[in-house]
């Protein structure tokens, strides 16, 4: 049995007395796309930040491949890429320079040609020399995704990657994700876009109140059309759980 590139075990995160995540057990296998669904504030970004090493868990363990780690060192970070909700681009640098920076820092740079190919994959080859600050939000999102692909990471962590993308942008991202899955990358993403999730993910996990409340998996050979209702049902479950949580809140 192959070892999952990401395995979170009994993971918890507290901010003081507020428990944001509780007893999360989640594995993402090579060649698998897992979507995190849930209402705002349910802990999706916190979970991704912990997986990316930006936050420390309050309890539980993180394992990347065969190794459980407390602190992510440089070698561990070589194997993962994280796209945050904000695009985190250098506005004064061109699209190509933004990619070049990470490529040179990694030390396994694919070269200018390789980076140009990455830009082509996300439909930005025409804007390679334009400053990222002049891009629309959707273009910036695509550039951030292109940057995450540098070095062909084993684990891709994407926080709401479909944000701000138009129809064409969503189609490009879906193609990129499917290609990365075919390459063998493990992908964990969060999203509110249930249709986009249904088109690319193999498994969807619903987070509610900091716990994994439910999950659904694509059957072998199951089409997007057949899988989409289950994803939507999970999404409706989210809405239902959210409404219940509101009902439980005492009146002011």
């Amino acid at each position, binding site marked *: 049995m192959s070892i999952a590139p990401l395995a979170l075990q009994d993971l918890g995160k507290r901010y003081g007395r507020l428990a944001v995540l509780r007893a999360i057990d989640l594995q993402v296998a090579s060649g698998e796309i897992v979507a995190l669904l849930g209402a705002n504030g349910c802990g999706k970004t916190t979970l991704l930040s912990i997986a990316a090493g930006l936050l420390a868990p309050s*309890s539980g363990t993180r394992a990347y491949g*065969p190794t459980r*780690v407390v602190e992510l*060192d*440089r070698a561990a970070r070589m194997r993962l890429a994280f796209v945050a909700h904000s695009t985190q681009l250098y506005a*004064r640098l061109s699209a190509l320079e933004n990619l070049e920076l990470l490529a040179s*820092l990694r030390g396994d740079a694919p070269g200018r040609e390789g980076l140009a190919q990455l830009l082509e994959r996300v439909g930005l080859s025409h804007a390679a020399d334009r400053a990222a600050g002049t891009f629309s939000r959707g273009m910036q999102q695509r550039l951030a995704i292109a940057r995450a692909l540098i070095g062909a990471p084993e684990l891709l962590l994407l926080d709401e990657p479909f944000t701000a993308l138009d129809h064409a942008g969503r189609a490009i991202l879906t193609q990129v994700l499917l290609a990365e899955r075919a390459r063998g990358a493990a992908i964990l993403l969060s999203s509110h876009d249930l249709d986009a999730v249904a088109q690319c993910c193999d498994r969807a996990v619903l987070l509610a109140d900091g716990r994994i409340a439910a999950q659904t998996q694509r059957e072998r050979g199951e089409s997007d059309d057949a899988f989409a209702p289950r994803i939507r049902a999970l999404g409706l479950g989210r809405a239902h759980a959210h409404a219940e949580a509101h009902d439980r809140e005492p009146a002011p």
Partner: protein
Amino acid sequence: MSVPADAALGGLVLAPRRGRAHATNRAVVFRQAWLLARNDLRQELRDLELVLTAAFFTLVVLVMFALAFAALPAAAQVLAVPGMLWLAVAFVGALTLTRIFDREREADTLRAVLTWPVERVAIYFGKLAVSLLVVVGCGALLMPALALLFPTAGVFFERPLEAIALLVLGCVAYCATGTLFAAGLATASGKNVLLSVILYPLTSPALIFALVSTRALLEGHPQFSTYLGQLAAVDLVVLVLASWLFEPVLVGSQRPHGPSPRARRERARVQAERP
């Protein structure tokens, strides 16, 4: 990730960050620090925002000093010139450090760098190099200008090597301390107000050392080299401490605070089953 699987599966392990690969690691740190500094400089060259602000501020300070202290007697100049020099350096330094990390905060790019395979200490040395370049540059404007305005400061021209060494060592002490805390605040809330509040008290020892050494240079003190040596020692201590503290200051401890609830339940179960 460099830990063998067998060892890793046995229990919780810390991926070793130091040891055999020390020399390679050092080369990586300096290469990455250079790349990050070059990235900052490249951005700076696009709009010269920081350089122009710092240079203009230095010029304004010089004009004000010239107007206020031009008539000082020589004995008073020996006391005043070091204060003028290092006060200006302190203000330009604060301006520079604030702006350097503001840029990262604007687009949240520092968080992106934290997820990249970059040695955390390389971020420190990269930022230190840029702030040092700006502050030393302003100091290089200040020193000859002060020497022209105040005859006592003519020593800066007479003993240029000592003057340059003094400027560089003093700026290193200031920027090394300032960069550490500016970086820590860049990922926290509280931001610039807190930086101004903590920066001056924390850099005061470095500034006082630099100030006393400058006075020794102006007075032609026979033991000036000792003063310079002490300043170099301060630099070394600050640099070692800062590179050691940088990662915890920047991202905090990554260790879980205690055993997981499952581990606690398991331990409680084992204890309950004991006769």
